[in-house]
């Protein structure tokens, strides 16, 4: 390679990198624009919005956030969503970890069949079961209750969670299990004290996805809640829009509030998200 070519190559690479950054920024602007626009609208006073779209908040103010909490029982909606989401995540985690333990460490007849049964649940779309589930909830008197909001969506994550946690448990050396048993530790103690802490990265991946799905779910809470006090924030907010469509800044303040937890989780758990995507596709 002559010394005249080398600088040219370097320059070409630098130009290519600059071009790539330019495209990266351009794409980011387009993708993030809906989030930005919601924030910009939420921060704008009502009078400014009446004059047309606000790409940048004029006289930014947080008053729409306070007004949104006054206009609708947003606090109650949020509380419901927090309770329901944690119920779903905890329930999925408990059921999946326990089942995964049996598949990874115990030997019993028809193990394969049971495992396939757990995996097969991932093929059943929620829409195929909502009508009978709704009828069940109604006959049990579980409509408009936390139990009804938690127990049905809970099932959608057990199959994947069991699969994922089993894979992590399988990476633990079997000697660990045998040693613990020889020491007289009960199997539950081994699971909670040794297997689960060593597999916490798997549990973290699962928790992130379970939380995103639980927090963002729409169809099931729409069906089983009819009283305002039991509504989740996703349903409550969408109903606000039919009440009064002109208060865009209030509506967007509500949207920003419900987006904050999931966006925070997304930013804090990039590694888990990337690994979870590889481990299996996750859809809400």
């Amino acid at each position, binding site marked *: 390679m002559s010394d005249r070519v080398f600088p040219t190559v370097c320059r070409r690479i630098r130009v290519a990198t600059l071009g790539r950054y330019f495209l990266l920024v351009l794409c980011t602007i387009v993708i993030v624009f809906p989030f930005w626009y919601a924030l910009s609208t939420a921060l704008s006073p009502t009078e400014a919005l009446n004059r047309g779209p606000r790409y940048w908040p004029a006289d930014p103010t947080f008053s729409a956030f306070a007004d949104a909490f006054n206009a609708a029982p947003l606090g109650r909606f949020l509380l419901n969503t927090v309770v329901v989401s944690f119920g779903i995540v905890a329930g999925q985690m408990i059921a999946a970890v326990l089942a995964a333990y049996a598949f990874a460490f115990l030997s019993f*007849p028809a193990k394969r069949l049971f495992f396939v049964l757990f995996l097969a649940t991932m093929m059943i779309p929620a829409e195929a079961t909502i009508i009978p589930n709704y009828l069940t909830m109604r006959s049990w008197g579980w409509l408009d209750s936390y139990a009804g909001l938690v127990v049905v969506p809970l099932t959608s994550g057990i199959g994947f969670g069991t699969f994922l946690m089993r894979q992590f448990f399988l990476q633990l050396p079997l000697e660990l299990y045998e040693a613990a048993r020889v020491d007289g530790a009960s199997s539950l103690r081994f699971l909670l004290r040794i297997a689960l802490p060593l597999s916490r990265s798997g549990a973290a991946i699962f928790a992130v996805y379970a939380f995103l799905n639980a927090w963002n779910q729409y169809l099931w809470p729409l069906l089983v809640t009819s009283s305002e006090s039991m509504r989740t924030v996703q349903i409550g907010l969408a109903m606000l829009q039919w009440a009064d469509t002109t208060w865009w800044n209030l509506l967007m303040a509500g949207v920003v509030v419900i987006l904050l937890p999931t966006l925070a989780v997304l930013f804090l758990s990039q590694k888990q998200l990337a690994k979870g995507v590889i481990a299996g596709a996750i859809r809400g």
Partner: protein
Amino acid sequence: MYESEPPFSLEVAQQPAASIRKRRKLPLKRAGEMGIALGYMAPGLLLLGLFLFYPAIRALWLSLSTTDLDGKITGFVGVAQYRLLFTSPAFWTSLRATLLFAVIVVPSTLLVAMGLALLADRELPAIGLFRTLFASPMAASVSAAALIFQLFYNPASGVLNDLLQHMGLGPVPWLTAPGWALFSVALISIWMNVGFTFLLLLGGLAQIPRELYEVADLDGISPWQRLTRITLPLWSPTLFFALIVTMISSFQVFGQINILTRGGPIGATNVLVYDIYRNAFFNFQYTSASAEAMILFAIVIVLTLLQFRIGERRVFYR
């Protein structure tokens, strides 16, 4: 298929498990462990049985029956509900709207996500930030997304018509014209899908061995050949997986339609799940709604099995 491991496999999971599997010969079964195992599986089995397997079977049974307005079964009619559906123009309109929705959403999502993944698949300073921002739509719930886009589509003060006006183009009746409404709700899904699909495809790209590119560069291969001869073939298992997942989620679209168009105008956005929802919970037609749900179920199963047969074995989680 078996000899050449797909380039994109369950990295977290499958590889270590496969290497360990030989060593992990569990002691032969004792009857006692069955009881313990059942105990550990009990919470999962109970929940899945009550709220997944039982309702799935009951939905099938409902679709073969007649009921009263309370959903109590009053008789068995065989496939009559299905026959009725397949001769009903309304059902075909709904199915066509669903297919059209998928036709709009799936290729656009894949192409955009592919472009983004290729763009972000380079170790550069601050690339992690760009990757997170590209993935960010996956944090949005369908109600948040629908409400934001409703603001975009607003006829009076909407962003999109404002931008079009600056370009000298006339206002578009985004949600109010039958010809536009399906496209407008599809745009929301494309935006929401892109985040996840991007992450998935980026993971697929990362599995392609870098040495291949280095060797190819020494051979003086053009960027186009690089893409078509190396990247695309090795990327294809992930692309196929993303295709199936996006298709399945397109067939399940509901939220933004309930929030923005309620199936209208004149049935243009009356997709399958929305039709199920209306039939079951507004018209109390539990049986025909169940038959529709079974058709959706069948579509999802076929797509899933297709992924299992043609693609590599990977799992779905919805």
